[in-house]
């Protein structure tokens, strides 16, 4: 019982294909009390490889939610558009912001804030809501997490329609800084996925965490420059300077507004990723054998 190797890795353990396995590819796996934690790492990877499964069920869930409605998932676009339009109107009229600058700023901020917070919030229920699957169907547990990520990416793509419209109406300039969006978005998404995984594991074990996080996120919304701008404050208060969410938003928002993000924003974001990856792996490894009981 002291061997700690996972001999041959497979979908937790082997998922039967519709084609019969021949003797040549018979795989042996050994699951013991000693190696279950290492299997957590493999589960994250094997789950990612089942993209057929998590992508198609995410698409299905999104379609299902808007089945028989006239404009389908574009209701998401519309309701966010109305929110941005209303807030943009109030802020430009009441506080005399210039709409050509303020509306794209607000739209971009809200779109990415929504992506980030819905991933973090829904991470809290990613495993708990999949309890029926987890206990009855052998498949990598992380599939349920990736499905939630995919669902939020689909919603984000619908929301990006608003950005495109706003860009066409207000900005329509072109420069190299827009390209910085691509690495920025990859980093932004990586942090959201890895941070969300920490939340997902902790929330499955401690059921208060999702509530705590929902309240904290509300506060962060107000202290982060999303519907107001740092330019309003010539000397930045510490809570902006040290707010990692501000820097995280900046690496995607600044390029989409045609500006280069500050190097500090990239540094803070890379630092966040560097801290959250080992934390997420540690938590997932510890929790992996227990998630079926916790969920």
């Amino acid at each position: 019982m002291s061997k700690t190797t996972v001999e041959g890795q497979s979908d937790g353990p082997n998922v039967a294909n519709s084609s019969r396995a021949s003797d040549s590819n018979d795989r042996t796996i050994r699951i013991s009390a000693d190696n279950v934690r290492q299997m957590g790492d493999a589960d994250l990877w094997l789950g990612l490889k089942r993209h057929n499964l998590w992508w198609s069920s995410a698409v299905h869930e999104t379609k299902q939610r808007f089945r028989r409605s006239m404009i389908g998932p574009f209701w998401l676009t519309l309701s966010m558009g109305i929110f941005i339009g209303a807030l943009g109107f109030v802020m430009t009229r009441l506080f005399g912001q210039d709409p050509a600058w303020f509306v794209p700023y607000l739209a971009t901020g809200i779109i990415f804030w929504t992506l980030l917070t819905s991933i973090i919030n829904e991470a809290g229920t990613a495993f708990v809501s999949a309890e029926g699957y987890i206990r009855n169907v052998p498949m990598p547990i992380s599939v349920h997490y990736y499905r939630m990520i995919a669902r939020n990416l689909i919603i984000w793509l619908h929301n990006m329609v608003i950005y495109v419209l706003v860009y066409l109406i207000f900005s329509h300039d072109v420069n190299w800084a827009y390209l910085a969006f691509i690495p920025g978005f990859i980093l932004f998404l990586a942090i959201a996925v890895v941070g969300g995984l920490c939340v997902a594991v902790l929330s499955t074990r401690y059921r208060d965490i999702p509530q705590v996080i929902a309240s904290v996120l509300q506060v962060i919304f107000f202290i982060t420059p999303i519907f107001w701008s740092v330019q309003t404050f010539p000397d930045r208060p510490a809570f902006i300077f040290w707010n990692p969410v501000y820097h995280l938003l900046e690496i995607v928002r600044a390029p989409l507004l045609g500006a280069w993000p500050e190097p500090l924003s990239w540094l803070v974001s890379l630092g966040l990723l560097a801290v959250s990856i080992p934390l997420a792996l540690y938590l997932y490894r510890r929790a992996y054998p227990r998630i079926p009981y916790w969920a």
Partner: protein
Amino acid sequence: MAHLSLQNLTVDFPIYGANSRSLKRRLVSHATGGRIAEGTDDAVVVRALDDVSIEIKDGDRIGLVGHNGAGKSTFLRTVAGIYKPTAGSITITGEVGTLIDPAAGMDPEATGIENIYLRGYVLGMDKGQIADLIDEIADFTELGDFLDLPVKTYSAGMFSRLGFAVSTAIKPDILLIDEGIGAGDAAFQERAAERIEELKRNVRILVVASHDNSLLESLGCRPILFSAGKIVDDGRGGVG
């Protein structure tokens, strides 16, 4: 060669009360030095499988029998890799397929065809493999044009026929079946039995958990008796 080897396998379930799972308990127990809260944070542990050792070889047909809560379903779920051992180990050679919950992954709002895809992906098939199955499933379930309607419009029998048909389309080396499979009217029961028979012929190891002795007998299963998480009779006169 398919093979299953369980060595001193123990599976413990932590059972959390509504209280013990909250973070407050955890914090409070730290604040009080863990003395007052002692024993309240520690979850009750149920030992579902207790030091089980068994070798199941290629060609074996095993029936798991025993009272409710004796460990039959936990045994199946552990072999399927769902529950992880707390002590001991399990070594699995061959692909494992399960018929534990034939309806898992199905959505009542979606059409029959959509559900075949959803369920197919859950079983690990790809799009092409599922597409190839649709005609056969339509034929087997005799659902015909109903496959284009939402599953919620189906009768209970039609629903379980569909779940059964997709779930049994797999061809694993090791098949694990939990009781309560197959449903529908008498005519369908017969065809379901044929399908199970065919599966039985094709798989190398069959493990069925059931209270129905006649089912186990008809499948030619050697009964293994579980009691309180232990094997008390391995069907060969020996005690595991």
